């Protein structure tokens, strides 16, 4: 009997120990998850002494809910909600979209259960799919005047509030380049594909074997890379829409469409100098951030959302990081070689179906508070660490990637184009891009995949 008890205790503690090591092993491997909501953030103090915003006293005691699909600002949004509640008396409940759920799926299931959030942070495609059926009309709201060029209109009406600007390009680590080459590096000196290749060759000669990291993730390849072929058509969202329609209708043949071959030329360069060239589909996202921060590589195709990863990998906000454009050719006059893509990426939609008039009013006030109150303006930039698309916000972003985009947006160094593509574009064509990246398909097959994808769309 005693022996059995002993065995049981031993086996139970062994199980516990094994499970523990496995769990810690897991933590070890994925320690740099940027979306970890438990992560302790350094908070930057907000000056609340000045507040000229006019609050509507009748809204006191109203409760509104906010569905947040931007996991990295969950804590910051809660702080923002609390600050707003203190001033206005309106309670803002921030609900996160849990990992693994898509924001769209979440919001649709909440609508189907008759309990949708008052406001939800969604992607532009989601807003377009839902707006006319569910959203409240926001045309005529005061903040629209401050967000010129960043507002999405659907049949002439505004249904969503642009939350932030996000941009992407080839992230460089200036120190890594300078240390390798032993001379100072001016990012503006690179203006064509050839100059970029020459720089890469010099880095290789100086000892940096493979200077570029290319993420294998389908969202990176299918959305962030491939969408250049639409967005650089003329550098506007309308242009992107136009070329997509033309591809669908067969008016544009991908085989002779210059942006397609130019994009692949650039992609081939990235492929050639890829740090994971031996096994491109085995590349690890977290490791890329570490490689760039450590100076093992000098470039990484990504956007300003990669900052939390870089910062976790050891990059400091005083370090010199920034973006190079996705060079498409050797024409110095081509905007694609001097500008990076930056456009509003997350949209806030207000429910017009279930929310009471009082709740809608409170939600509208909250959105205006973000844009016009001194506290809201500060919190957008300092607490949430996002680039606001509103001209009246005087605060500059704090991390080098966002700062670079901010400067580029204000100095004509960025083009505002985002292609509105079907929701499975990144997944389906991301897979085709993976195949091409791994060298298991050629240009012809990739282009026929893209054409086939568009032919299947209604």
């Amino acid at each position, binding site marked *: 009997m005693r022996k059995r008890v002993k065995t049981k205790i031993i086996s139970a503690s062994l199980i516990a120990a094994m499970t523990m090591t*496995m769990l810690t092993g897991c933590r070890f491997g994925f320690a740099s998850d940027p979306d970890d909501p438990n992560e302790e953030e350094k908070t930057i103090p907000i000056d609340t002494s000045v507040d000229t915003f006019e609050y509507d006293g009748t809204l006191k005691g109203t409760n509104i809910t906010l569905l947040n699909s931007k996991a990295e600002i969950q804590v910051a949004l809660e702080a923002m909600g609390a600050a707003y509640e203190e001033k206005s008396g309106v309670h803002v409940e921030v609900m996160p979209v849990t990992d693994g759920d898509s924001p769209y*799926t979440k919001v649709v299931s909440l609508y*189907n259960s008759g309990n949708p959030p008052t406001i939800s942070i969604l992607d532009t495609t989601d807003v377009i799919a839902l707006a006319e059926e569910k959203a409240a009309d926001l045309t005529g709201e005061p903040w629209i005047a401050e967000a010129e060029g960043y507002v999405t209109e659907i049949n002439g009406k505004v249904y969503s509030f642009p939350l932030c600007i996000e941009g992407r390009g080839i992230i460089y680590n200036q120190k890594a380049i300078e240390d390798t080459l032993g001379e100072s590096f001016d990012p503006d000196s690179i203006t064509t594909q050839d100059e970029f290749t020459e720089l890469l060759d010099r880095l290789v000669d100086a000892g940096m074997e493979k200077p570029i990291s290319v993420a294998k993730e389908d969202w990176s390849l299918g959305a962030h890379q491939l969408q250049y072929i639409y967005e650089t058509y003329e550098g506007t969202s309308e242009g992107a829409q136009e070329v997509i329609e033309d591809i669908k209708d067969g008016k544009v043949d991908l085989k002779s469409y210059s942006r397609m071959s130019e994009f692949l030329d650039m992609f081939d360069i990235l492929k050639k100098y890829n740090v994971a060239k031996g096994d491109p589909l085995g590349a690890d996202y977290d490791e890329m951030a570490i490689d760039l921060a450590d100076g093992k590589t000098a470039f990484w195709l990504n956007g300003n959302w990669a900052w939390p990863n870089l910062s976790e990998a050891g990059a400091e906000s005083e370090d010199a990081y920034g973006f190079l454009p996705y060079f498409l050719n050797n024409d110095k006059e081509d905007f694609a070689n001097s500008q990076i893509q930056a456009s509003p990426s997350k949209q806030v939609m207000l429910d017009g179906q279930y929310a009471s008039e009082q709740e809608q009013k409170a939600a509208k006030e909250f959105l205006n508070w973000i844009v016009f109150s001194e506290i809201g303006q500060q919190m957008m930039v300092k607490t949430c660490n996002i680039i606001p698309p509103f001209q009246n916000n005087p605060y500059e972003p704090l991390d080098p990637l966002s700062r670079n985009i901010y400067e580029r947006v204000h100095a004509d160094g960025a083009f505002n184009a985002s292609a509105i593509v079907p929701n499975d574009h990144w997944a389906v064509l991301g897979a085709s891009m993976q195949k091409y990246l791994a060298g*298991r398909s050629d240009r012809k097959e990739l282009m026929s995949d893209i054409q086939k994808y568009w032919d299947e769309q209604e």
Partner: protein
Amino acid sequence: MRNKNGGKDFCMFALPGMFCFFAVVIIPFIYGVYLTLTDWNGVAKVKNFVGFENFGGVMKDSQFWTSLLLTFKYVIFVVIIVNVLAFAIAYLLTRGMKGQNFFRAGFFTPNLIGGIVLGYIWQFVFSRVFVSIGESTGWKLFEVSWLSDPTNAFVALVVVSVWQLSGYMILIYVAGFMGLSEDVMEAASIDGASGWVKLKSIIMPLMMSSVTICLFLTLSRAFMVYDVNLSLTAGAPYGTTEMAAMHVYEKAFTSRQFGVGQAEALILFIIVAVISGVQVYMTKKQEVEA
């Protein structure tokens, strides 16, 4: 004999369970079947009846049939390996060897870890641990991540599923072995039956009830695999390891074709139901009593 208090017992004991069963299984299932006949996109207020149009969409979705074929391949490997392995280990663990309780617990542990967590752990093992072993030893087998090659990624999926499922099946087989009557075994020995003959003519027939359960569980779980698939490979590389259940989800929620996705789910359900039904019927027929 009919109970005097009529429906009272039924209401007290069966009704709550039946209500739950209907509410969460039967009604959603019927509603799901109805949805395959409409063009509902998950959002719209109106649902238009479109007949069998969605099933036509399933026929045209070549990726679905590819993933279904892959699922069949996966099921065959997993079911055979899991059951042979579990049966053999259970046999060893009921022969009174030293520390067998410890081993039973050890083999069962993987089953306690959820599929998602398990997938992430193994993803780390395949793409980091194995690769660094390969780097330091120069073994070709581990040179690149298994998950970046279609064939190896499939093997990885099978390995992880076997690792996860075997423990549970070992438990059931162990229970089956423990239930074998000593008398019968002794009688067989006295009659001069050798180890192999005993296994074939005595143990196997008496173990058929465990085999029925284990085959049914492995079949249905392997067909419906989603969590390990999602966290280990997520269909990578380039969609070559996307199993049927995952494809259904992607179709409905990523491609937002609810009707087609639902129709595919229904087809998958029918296939699984028929196959496991036939399996249970066939193995039940083999069951004997001592």
